[in-house]
């Protein structure tokens, strides 16, 4: 059964066999997002993962017309993206609700950054280190802007800072819309920029 046929069978006919195929086909995708999001929210509970997978399926079937609306045969990837967003929202909503209840402050919702756990920075920075890094960052940005041609500057700087400052992997950057590069392409950009920096900073005595 094609994806198109499967979604129509689920959404229009409410067919249990079709839904079983749906669960089977998307289980790894949905469970993967649930596992990663719950871990990101600081929980390793397998039972919770199981409950949230069930919640996600119930959420999906509660609005069968939405399934049809979200599916475009020419862009099946968008449908996978839709399922991932629904799944992560189910998990994040659960943790936001938990946090709001725990805090008991009367606020109805916590923000996403409050429920996600972020890895610790490598080391605590004192003021002097902070100033040094600010200077280094400006210098790095200046060197790169001066060395890159206008055409690729905007894209390459985004790649550089997303990778080195915010820790996105080359694969994650390559997947972002509008980057239009393969993983190798992103790695090659990073390598080129690093080479430029290495030469310039060595010359100025910083590197």
């Amino acid at each position, binding site marked *: 059964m094609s994806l198109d046929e499967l979604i129509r069978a689920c959404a229009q006919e409410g067919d249990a066999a079709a839904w079983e195929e749906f669960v089977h086909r998307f*289980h790894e995708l949905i469970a993967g997002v649930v596992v990663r999001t719950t871990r990101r929210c600081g929980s390793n509970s397998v039972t919770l993962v199981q409950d949230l997978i069930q919640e996600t399926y119930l959420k999906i079937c509660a609005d069968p017309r939405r399934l049809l609306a979200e599916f475009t045969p020419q862009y099946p990837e968008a449908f996978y993206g839709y399922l991932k967003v629904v799944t992560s929202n189910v998990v994040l909503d659960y943790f936001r609700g938990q946090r709001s209840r725990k805090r008991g402050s009367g606020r109805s919702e916590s923000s996403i950054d409050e429920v996600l756990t972020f890895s610790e920075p*490598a080391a605590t920075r004192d003021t002097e280190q902070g100033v040094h890094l600010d200077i280094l960052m400006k210098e790095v940005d200046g060197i790169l802007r001066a060395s890159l041609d206008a055409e690729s500057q905007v894209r390459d700087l985004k790649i550089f800072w997303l990778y080195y*400052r915010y820790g996105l992997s080359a694969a994650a950057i390559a997947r972002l819309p509008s980057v239009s590069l393969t993983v190798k392409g992103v790695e090659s950009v990073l390598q080129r920029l690093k080479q430029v920096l290495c030469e310039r900073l060595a010359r100025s005595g910083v590197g």
Partner: protein
Amino acid sequence: MTRDPQAHLSPEEFRFLSEEGESVSQGDFDREVAEAHAETCSLCGPRLRSHRSLQANLGNLAVLVASEQKSECPPEQTWVTLAAGLTPITEAPGLLEHASHCDHCGPMLRAASEIMNPEVSDAERDLIRNLPTVETTWQRVMAEKMAKASAKQVRREHAIPARLSTTTEQMPSRASTEQVATSASARTSWLFAKWTRWAVPLGAAAAIGVAMLVYSKNSTPSLSKANDLIAQAYTEQRPIEWRFPGAGYGPVRQQRGGNSNPSYSQMDEPPQLLEARILIARGLAHHPQDPGWLQAKARADLFDGQCQSAIKELQKALQIRFEDASLDLDLATAYFQNASQDAPQEAQQKDYALALLSLNRVLDKEPNNLIALFNRAVVYGRLHRHDEAKTDWLRYLKEDPVGEWSRAARALSEQ
């Protein structure tokens, strides 16, 4: 192919040697020979040091924790949508430009990208394969629920136009009924009409009742709901001074005592706990060996001070799911509570030590688990290990500097 020891390092080799530990594919790169060359070569040696120094500096630039959201930052949901590839291509460049210079949105985008990663790691795949949700039976039951729910929703969507058309069609029918009423069989028709007026709704109500009964007997209740209800009960009537997963802050009310307290009645319990007990009974009826339901029962038992039965349930659950830190956390609660009851001092100290062991296991698995850290500080205090208690309190207050739990931690640390 063997590397020529005299050959200068290639750009790729500089990269591999300076990006130690990064996830770069190194193929058949011969690190040892390349390192040895760099050590003796007057050209490659300084250049490699320069590469490594730059790498270290770039590593220091990393911002891994999201800072405060600013007014110009887009809503946080934006990054989830973007990482899922659902943002229109025209909007993506502007958003990426913002994320690449924002210490709030950059880390948010990274978190979203990790969540949306289409590649499932081996560890994740192993975990998923062991979930009950991969079993055909589970998927079949889920599919049936989904089919019913979606059919119901589709029927509801069709109901509005259908009801409108029914009303229109009924008008001539009503007129003909009036004509019949004037005929000789008018009385019979009236009785029939009268009967259908109450029989139809009564029949529908009975059918709904039967369906609900069948549904409630056959459907598995939600474990997370049961745990939520227990956490709410703990928030409302906190039985011991330490922290319970999911529960908010509340004053300690040591009114429990289980069956040993003659004035104790289950009707004194918070209503959330009574509701949770119903769910747990149904859950265990469906899955008597499920560690999650055993854990929920243990939590409810602990609320009543039935520590021994909670310890047994949690040990049983841990035999099945030994890696679950939340089970160890609850086991520590059970030992702590057991010690707090009227036990001889020697037995008390033994229970505190067992609670400490369980908490150490939790913190080995989850070093940033603040609930375990809070509770361990309390246990260290009971064990008169005041230096270790102080260290834990200081660490706790650093991680959770504001709020009611923080105030409670300060008060306990000063005792």
